[in-house]
């Protein structure tokens, strides 16, 4: 690949502006299939969001008085944040346990996590009815201290900061700021410790939000252990997404990978698969314990019981086995299939809590189903995140090694 000819060290604003301008120019082919699909979707998404801001949330969503939270919360926020869990798991492995094997993928994962928070938690802004008040719990226009959502809001903000600090050395390397990089990278361990703590609390906190929806969520899903289930599932949700995303990046950004990374990539995937299998088994075991103690056998014969079994057997136990098998026989296809199934399982699980098994006693067609416009805005947000991710990966040392002045000195 062509290494940027831009100055590697920026001394003044006069260097900075042309450098940024040159970096803003697109690189590579413009008419790729991804671009052709994503650009119209993003444009349409922006139009829909503008329309929603003028006409209200009801104008483009199917939300109702019975279903105040729909796809934007259930998928964008709940699921998006679970998938961002890979960042705290990997930083734990690399910076706390110091398992160097996973070092090559830690930056891409943290970047992905950071962007996931910015975009998916940012999607909250369009879901909030009065988004101009979003900073009220931060600036103290009343602190709702007894609210789980208050905790989640603060943790989102603090965790985004922690992740930004974790990824910031890459930004400094890109700009050639040697001194700044030194300062920023000395903050990494602190940010990691802080970040893992915050993640533990808000991953489980997202589950705790549903504690007061008792009676509205189907008994097969509602339990007092929802927070723990959300936390444990965020571990393998995050890792599965790392496997999935890593497999794609491997191909799409293969020019940007350093040789060492390329060689160890399969080995990394196998290690991650083992981690997933372990976490998933623990999760399955917890689910079984909760089911036994809940004594909800009677629901198993219903359609909801079948749906529950699809989730817990088809999208937890089976991928768990596939991960294990893939790791034992070094079969990457098995691992990738397992990752896709797991991702599907997490999406369904989070949607079950927020949408599908929420007010299960209200049957279709009165039950909430997202409108096409909600789906388009969600897709637009996902595509926008991928655009930013790609822009950064191509320009900064995320997948490739840091510049020589870091590794050499």
């Amino acid at each position, binding site marked *: 690949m062509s290494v940027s000819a831009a100055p590697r060290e920026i001394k003044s604003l006069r260097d900075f502006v042309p450098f940024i301008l040159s970096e803003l120019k697109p690189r590579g082919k413009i008419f790729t299939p991804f671009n052709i699909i994503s650009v119209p979707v993003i444009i349409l998404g922006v139009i829909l969001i503008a329309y929603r801001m003028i006409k209200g949330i009801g104008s483009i969503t199917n939300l109702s*008085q019975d279903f*105040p939270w729909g796809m934007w919360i259930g998928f964008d926020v709940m699921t998006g944040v679970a998938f961002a869990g890979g960042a705290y798991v990997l930083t734990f492995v690399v910076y706390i346990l110091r398992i160097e094997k996973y070092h090559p993928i830690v930056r891409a994962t943290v970047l992905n996590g950071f962007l996931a928070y910015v975009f998916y938690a940012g999607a909250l802004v369009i879901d909030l009815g009065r988004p101009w008040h979003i900073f009220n719990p931060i600036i*103290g226009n009343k602190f709702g201290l007894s609210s789980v959502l208050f905790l989640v809001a603060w943790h989102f903000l603090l965790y985004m900061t922690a992740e930004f600090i974790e990824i910031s050395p890459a930004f400094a390397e890109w700009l050639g700021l040697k001194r700044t990089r030194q300062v920023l990278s000395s903050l990494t361990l602190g940010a990691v410790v802080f970040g893992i703590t915050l993640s533990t609390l808000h991953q489980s906190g997202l589950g705790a939000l549903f504690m007061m929806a008792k009676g509205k969520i189907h008994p097969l899903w509602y339990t007092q252990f929802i927070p723990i289930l959300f936390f444990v599932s965020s571990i393998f949700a995050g890792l599965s997404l790392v496997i999935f995303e890593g497999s794609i990046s491997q191909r799409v950004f293969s020019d940007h990978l350093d040789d060492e990374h390329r060689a160890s990539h399969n080995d990394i995937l196998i290690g991650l698969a083992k981690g997933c299998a372990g976490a998933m088994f623990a999760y399955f075991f917890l689910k079984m314990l909760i089911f036994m103690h809940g004594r909800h056998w009677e629901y198993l014969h219903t359609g909801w019981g079948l749906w529950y079994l699809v989730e817990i057997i088809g999208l937890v136990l089976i991928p768990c086995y596939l991960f294990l098998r893939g790791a034992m026989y070094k079969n990457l296809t098995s691992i990738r299939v397992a990752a896709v199934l797991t991702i599907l399982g997490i999406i369904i699980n989070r949607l079950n809590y927020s949408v599908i098994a929420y007010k299960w006693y209200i049957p279709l067609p009165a039950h909430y189903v997202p409108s096409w416009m909600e789906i388009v805005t969600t897709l637009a947000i996902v595509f926008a995140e991928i655009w930013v991710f790609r822009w950064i990966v191509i320009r900064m040392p995320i997948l490739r090694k840091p510049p020589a002045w870091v590794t050499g000195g």
Partner: protein
Amino acid sequence: MDRRKFLKSLGVGVLGAAGTALMARRPHAAEYSSESGEEFKGVLVDTTRCIGCRSCEEACAAAHDLPAPDIGDESVFKEKRDTSTTQLTVVNRYKTEKGIFFVKKQCMHCGQPGCVAACLVKAMKKHDDGAVTWDTNCMGCRYCMISCPFDIPKFEYNSWNPKIQKCNLCWEQRLTKGGIPACVEACPTETLLFGTKRELIEESRRRIYRQPKKYVNYIYGEDEVGGTSWIYLSAVPFEQIGFKTDLGVTAYPEYSTGFLYAVPIVLILWPAFLMGLSYLTRPEDEKEKKEKKR
């Protein structure tokens, strides 16, 4: 906002995020008074007296500047209506084994409301006199709607500047001026009785004891979800007149206190544990380097 005030509130916020659990109230069932000791006020609805005239609906709309309902139109009883952003109270008709009964529906004004515990900016507030009200610092997250056991808060989905609409016990309109709720005043049959919850419970018991054949021996709202400020009497079992009878007596905020209590513990133990683990895994030469530097 000046910088000092900002930093101060930032500090409170950080501490709050840490110590949320410590601040959570220790709940107990069937509360009758606020923390300051003031008795909660509420309304007793004796469904055996209601004739379905809907004067309460009319008075409510007038008190809250909402479109006036056509109370002569009896066709509304054909289906069960829910409260809405423009109707903070509705009367429904139920056909039961003992005949036809009319039941008024509105916010129950819980002793420990789920919506108040849910609100991250305290836009939902339980006042000392018992009223649960909504304020404009709301950000529109609709978590109150998720957390309300009775599905009462209603959101204006079709406005760029939406509000949460619900019965406020005429707190702003009348209560603070020494009045009583508009619906109570308008009721021609004394179905509605305004008073402190303690008095209302006593009155309910009196009616049940005096006419045990007329009433079922149950006061809905005495203990439901930890006790509500609106309570109901009925001639037939409550599930026959549209009440949820499986809500339990636990106050809704209590369901999330378990999680909130765990927060400060994790916040203190996790970093210590992680730092310790990180020290253990640090390569020996790096440790020595650090020692020498000192």
